[in-house]
């Protein structure tokens, strides 16, 4: 935003002189110096439109002599000001040298009074039953600037529909809408999906959608946040609670590597046994991570924390074979005995939602019994170590990417795997950044790219060489970009293929000198919330592969639902003598365990994650406990204590202190450091609800970004790229859908996301389909590698390249191929 390059201009606001960077609009400028100009339609994340007229102010210019440039003075020696004859909308005017602004005057006050009075003539004033009541900009501004009384004849009031579903997740109350168009503009400008529009005009104006699919983007919930009235509400929360009865707890979304900062609105609730319950989740501002946005999966996907399938008590398998409920002490003793007797033949596989504290404690426990075998789950994405070397530089903010900068997205369907990165790369593209998408198939991201290049399925690592050869102009733009960020996933790649791609990305960045600086470097589009934490704490997918190949005597599964993800898991798990499972749910792997320890979800505990950009962020306890579940780190620490490895810590904060002391990367990441906040622009939230809506201010901390090796000035060397591609007539590529049937999404799915989760399908190329006599909509059997064949519906829709079939993971209860494999498709 404000850089040394930006020209400063002198502006007088309410008789005081200030300097502002040229190009800033009057509303934002005034807010920076604590002068409030009320707005309804203007939002700093979108272009101003000047529709609501609430920001009318008096604007003038200091007069200068045209010949000399001298400021003209009046009789009393003050500069002469020529006032514009009418009030101006502050949101559509930028600061300029010599501009004079009056934010309050008789005319301004009257204009605001009239605007509010006019808006209220078609507003139902049903605040007592409105979800927004209590945190409503219209309410606030009516109290602050409104006339108190209306001259409206209320017989003439328009009555409109109050329950119009715009999609399955969002309801529109037509009466409450004040026609600011924020939702329409959000969809068009920010989300890039212009499925909302105005219809009719004047008092008949309504928000509509007739698109197919309709208002169904992954970002739809954000419109309810920025709606300055109660017109848009979520199906999930509406009529759920009043804003003033809820507390706001800073937490994190743990569904993907973006690590969106969120805020849980909680209250004591009858439906949850009188305990504190999360009623809704909203975005919490962190301009460097998620700005003020979040996706609908994170927003609505918190129901799993209160699922009836949650494990409530520790269980130990008796000699007879069935699991029986035990006390924690007995279960911990049983686990300790199993580990103690294992003679060092111990391994750990930790899932993607295990926190830094969980992972560190697991690492210590394993070390205590003589093991360093720490596996990361799922074992699909390699190269976190390379991200630690040449990851995006400290201080990176995707919002700063624009003209002259470039972004490469490779081997990932960013919209499905990390929606907020997709949104932020899209807006970077709009600001002028050169965006290249390289995949083996079409993805949604292609719509927001300057160049789309396709490589043959599985050959991502050679894409850079190909790029230089076949699309030299594209390569040139990337090489010469001022700043370059590469987002690399592992779609259609084996674990070795994924390493090759990450190495190729790292090499490209090193060669073109795009490392060790802010807004430059590599981001791994890894599964889950804490893949980088796994790396820093010693967990790797390669270790998982080794654990699968050489089964240990005792395997600890820490929130790793291996059977649901991997069709081969049942087979390799059976070779492990003993499984100790730390789990939220009674899943398949847990059913095979000797000791089952119920652990808490993110909602019930403190903890921290390390996101894809290596930012360590903490979350706070939002919800009351469930059963006897405890945080995973605590369960592990108690086992360690039983084994005589030292006393268990009392809090997550203490564990983090241990991490800081033991792992150099985490230097400066104590909880008190992670909790630090600083002023962010725009100043959303806060008591004045300045920019309207309820995007929450960040009070929980902005986190600390771990420096990459390149940031620290360490030499980063090029590495060998060993390409590895699967061969076959037909190659099955597992893909990721955001809405799926993974365990943590199932509970919310049952309630409101059910229709949003696609029925199991496979996408097949028209030529392949013709060869196999398969038609769009046929039921087919897909087999891939050693996986159990699955029956799904065939989509012949142009999505799959020739010779490749796309099989989304987790759309059904049985596991489908976890990694790319040669396979067959037959009609059934």
């Amino acid at each position, binding site marked *: 935003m404000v850089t040394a390059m930006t020209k400063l201009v002198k502006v007088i606001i309410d008789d005081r002189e200030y300097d502002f960077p040229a190009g800033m609009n009057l509303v934002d400028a005034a807010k920076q110096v604590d002068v409030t100009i009320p707005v309804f339609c203007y939002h700093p994340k979108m272009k101003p439109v000047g529709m609501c007229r609430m920001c009318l102010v008096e604007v003038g210019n200091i007069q200068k002599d045209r010949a000399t440039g001298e400021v003209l003075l009046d009789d009393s020696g003050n500069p002469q000001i020529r006032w514009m004859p009418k009030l101006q909308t502050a949101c559509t005017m930028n600061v300029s040298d010599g501009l004079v602004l009056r934010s309050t005057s008789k005319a301004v006050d009257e204009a605001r009074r009239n605007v509010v009075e006019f808006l209220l003539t078609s507003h139902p004033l049903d605040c007592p039953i409105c979800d927004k009541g209590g945190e409503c900009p219209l309410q606030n501004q009516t109290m602050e600037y409104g006339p108190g009384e209306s001259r409206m004849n209320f017989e003439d009031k328009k009555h409109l529909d109050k329950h119009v579903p715009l999609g399955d997740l969002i309801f529109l109350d037509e009466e409450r809408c004040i026609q600011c168009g924020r939702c329409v503009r959000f969809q068009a400008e920010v989300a890039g999906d*212009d*499925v*909302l*529009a*105005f*219809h*009719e*005009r004047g008092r008949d104006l309504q928000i*509509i*959608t*007739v*698109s*197919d699919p309709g208002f169904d983007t992954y970002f739809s919930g954000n419109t309810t946040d920025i709606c300055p009235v109660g017109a848009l509400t979520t199906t999930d929360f509406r009529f759920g609670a009043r804003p003033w009865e809820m507390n706001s707890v800073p937490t994190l979304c743990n569904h993907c590597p973006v690590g969106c900062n969120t805020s849980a609105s909680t209250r004591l609730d009858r439906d949850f046994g009188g305990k504190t319950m999360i009623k809704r989740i909203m975005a919490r501002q962190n301009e460097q991570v998620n700005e003020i946005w979040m996706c609908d999966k994170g927003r609505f996907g918190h129901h799993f924390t209160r699922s009836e399938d949650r494990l409530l008590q520790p269980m130990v398998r008796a000699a007879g074979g069935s699991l029986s409920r035990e006390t924690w002490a007995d279960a911990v003793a049983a686990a300790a005995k199993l580990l103690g007797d294992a003679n060092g033949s111990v391994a750990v596989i930790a899932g993607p939602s295990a926190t830094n504290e969980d992972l560190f404690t697991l690492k210590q426990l394993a070390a205590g019994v003589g093991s360093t075998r720490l596996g990361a789950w799922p074992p699909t994405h390699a190269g976190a170590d390379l991200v630690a070397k040449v990851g995006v530089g400290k201080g990176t903010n995707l919002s700063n990417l624009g003209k002259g900068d470039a972004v490469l997205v490779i081997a990932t369907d960013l919209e499905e795997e990390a929606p907020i990165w997709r949104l932020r790369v899209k807006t970077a593209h709009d600001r002028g950044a050169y965006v290249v998408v390289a995949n083996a198939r079409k993805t949604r991201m292609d719509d927001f790219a300057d160049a789309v290049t396709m490589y043959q399925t599985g050959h991502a690592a050679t894409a850079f060489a190909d790029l230089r050869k076949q699309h030299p102009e594209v390569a040139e733009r990337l090489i010469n970009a001022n700043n370059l960020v590469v987002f690399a996933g592992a779609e259609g790649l084996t674990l070795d293929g994924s390493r090759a791609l990450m190495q190729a990305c790292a090499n490209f960045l090193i060669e073109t000198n795009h490392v060790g600086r802010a807004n430059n470097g590599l981001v791994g589009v890894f599964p889950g919330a804490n893949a980088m934490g796994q790396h820093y704490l010693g967990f790797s997918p390669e270790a998982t592969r080794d654990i699968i190949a050489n089964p240990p005597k005792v395997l600890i599964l820490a929130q790793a639902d291996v059977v649901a993800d991997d069709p081969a898991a049942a087979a390799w798990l059976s070779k492990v003598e003993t499984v100790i499972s730390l789990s939220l749910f009674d899943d398949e792997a847990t059913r095979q365990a000797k000791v089952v320890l119920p652990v808490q979800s993110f909602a019930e505990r403190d903890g921290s994650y390390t996101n894809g950009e290596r930012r360590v962020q903490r979350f706070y306890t939002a919800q009351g406990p469930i059963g006897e579940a405890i945080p995973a780190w605590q369960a592990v620490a108690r086992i360690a204590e039983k084994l005589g490895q030292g006393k268990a810590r009392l809090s997550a904060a203490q564990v983090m202190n241990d991490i800081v002391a033991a792992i150099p990367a985490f230097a400066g990441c104590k909880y008190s450091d992670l909790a630090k906040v600083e002023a962010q622009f725009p100043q959303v939230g806060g008591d004045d609800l300045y920019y309207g809506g309820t995007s929450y201010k960040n009070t929980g901390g902005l986190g600390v970004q771990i420096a990459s090796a390149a940031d620290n000035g360490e030499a980063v060397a090029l590495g060998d790229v060993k390409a590895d591609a699967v061969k076959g007539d037909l190659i099955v590529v597992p893909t990721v859908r955001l809405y799926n049937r993974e365990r943590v999404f199932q509970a919310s799915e049952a309630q409101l996301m059910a229709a949003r989760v696609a029925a199991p399908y496979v996408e097949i190329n028209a030529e392949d389909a013709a060869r196999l006599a398969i038609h769009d909509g046929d039921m087919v059997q897909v087999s891939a590698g050693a996986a159990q064949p699955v029956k799904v519906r065939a989509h012949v829709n142009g999505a799959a390249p020739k010779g490749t079939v796309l099989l989304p993971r987790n759309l059904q209860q049985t596991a489908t191929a976890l990694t790319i494999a040669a396979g067959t498709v037959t009609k059934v």
Partner: protein
Amino acid sequence: MLAEKYAARIDQIFSKYPTKRSAVMPLLHLAQEEFGYVNEEAIQQVAVLCDMDPTQVQSIAGFYTMYSERPKGKYWLQVCTDLACALRGADKFHKELKEHLGVEEGGTTEDGLFTVEHVMCLAACDKAPMLQCNFHFEENLDMDKMKARIEAWRAEAAAEKSGAKKASAKTKA
């Protein structure tokens, strides 16, 4: 499909504009001509033609009053009742016209021939009372003249109908 039936006209419309999107309004008029009003089908087809989201097309159809989103009679009579016309008796004319046809404001006669509604200024104040029938002006009206016009339109419609019948009888034979 509009694209097939009016291929040449659509090409000609597109040729006038720098982008496909810019042609949305004339194409909506074309669709309205074809379907009698802007129905769902019209929205979908124009959206495909202009490479736009259907919601955006619907929004345009909703904003402009010359697009009708409801079925209309064969003769769409829009009477200007703005101040200048009202001073020359347009209000009375409008009321009498509705009584004569037996319709409410915005309503359509049972035979599906006439829809009457009042509109804002049509820029023919000097020739009031006036109306536009399917976007063609009828000026300097009074009820006698109007009754004659209505009869003429009824005859026209009847002739078209029987002509169509004869034509279909011929093809059958």
